[in-house]
């Protein structure tokens, strides 16, 4: 069979969702942000909520997320996305409000905001991309950096005596009464991507049921910051990140 006979509109089984704009993403080749943007756009398309979704973009690599997903966006000060999302959701209870934050934004400068938003049980979705490094500023140590991991500011590896221990923010948030769904996913292979999409969809659905905050962590790669190729970064993540950040649901009610 000739390829021309296969490539016909009626045989199409997968294409870029129209919710993603045609802009070329500024992310490095192989960056997990691209995959997660795509998943959020696909969930928004499947649920038919393009005119009802409001995203809050963080400070970090994903600050320009508003260029790529064709919905309403706000852009918050560093770490303050949950505070902005709280106000947006309280003023527009019929909208699907979500924040999209990295680990430098959420787990460091924004820890207080995310803790209290979750403790208040705001009906929002928080998408947390954890790649254990500050990607945009050049690969410095983040609170989530693993012990022994080499970064620009820990050239001999993270040392617990000097730099403290890596922070499992998702486990902390699962303890709070205000959260209804807390999960950790990944996006390194097709099965993980499909599971992550289901988790994001569930979180969006929860946000309309007045159950509390839904928190989806996605363990991702920063191949530029880690100084690895995209494929090797995925392997490194499986070997080093997953033992410390185990995947799965921590809370679902």
């Amino acid at each position: 069979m000739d390829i021309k006979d296969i490539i016909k509109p009626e045989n199409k089984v997968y294409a870029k969702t129209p919710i993603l704009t045609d802009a070329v993403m500024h992310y490095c080749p192989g960056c997990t942000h691209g995959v997660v943007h795509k998943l959020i756009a696909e969930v928004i398309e499947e649920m038919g909520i393009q005119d009802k979704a409001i995203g809050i973009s963080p400070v970090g690599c994903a600050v320009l997320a508003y260029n790529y997903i064709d919905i309403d966006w706000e852009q918050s000060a560093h770490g303050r996305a949950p505070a902005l999302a709280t106000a947006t959701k309280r003023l527009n209870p019929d909208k699907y409000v979500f924040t999209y934050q990295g680990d430098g934004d959420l787990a460091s400068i924004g820890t207080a905001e995310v803790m209290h938003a979750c403790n208040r049980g705001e009906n929002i979705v928080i998408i947390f991309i954890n790649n254990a490094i500050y990607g945009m500023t050049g690969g410095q140590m983040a609170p989530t950096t693993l012990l022994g991991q080499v970064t620009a500011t820990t050239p001999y590896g993270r040392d617990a005596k000097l730099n403290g221990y890596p922070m499992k923010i998702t486990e902390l948030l699962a303890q709070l009464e205000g959260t209804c769904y807390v999960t950790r996913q990944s996006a390194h292979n097709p099965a993980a991507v499909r599971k992550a999409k289901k988790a994001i969809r569930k979180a969006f659905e929860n946000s309309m049921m007045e159950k509390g905050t839904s928190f989806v962590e996605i363990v991702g790669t920063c191949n530029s910051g880690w100084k690895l190729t995209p494929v090797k970064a995925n392997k490194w993540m499986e070997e080093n990140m997953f033992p410390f950040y185990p995947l799965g649901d921590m809370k679902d009610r």
Partner: protein
Amino acid sequence: MAIKGAIVVDTAKCKGCSVCVANCPTQTIALSKEVNGKGYNFAYMENPDNCTGCTNCATVCPDAVITVYRVKI
């Protein structure tokens, strides 16, 4: 019943990260020797006969540049 598939890569937007190459179960995809306007070796079907249209490559593609077609013959 046999299933045949094919992919179309938006070569201008592909960044050649090769995550699709690593996740292709049938070794259909490879990076081309040519480069696109940004200097990236974009992905293409090296062994088009192998493709089953499983959509794994498109699922993991960070830049959403792969469109997948599948047909039963």
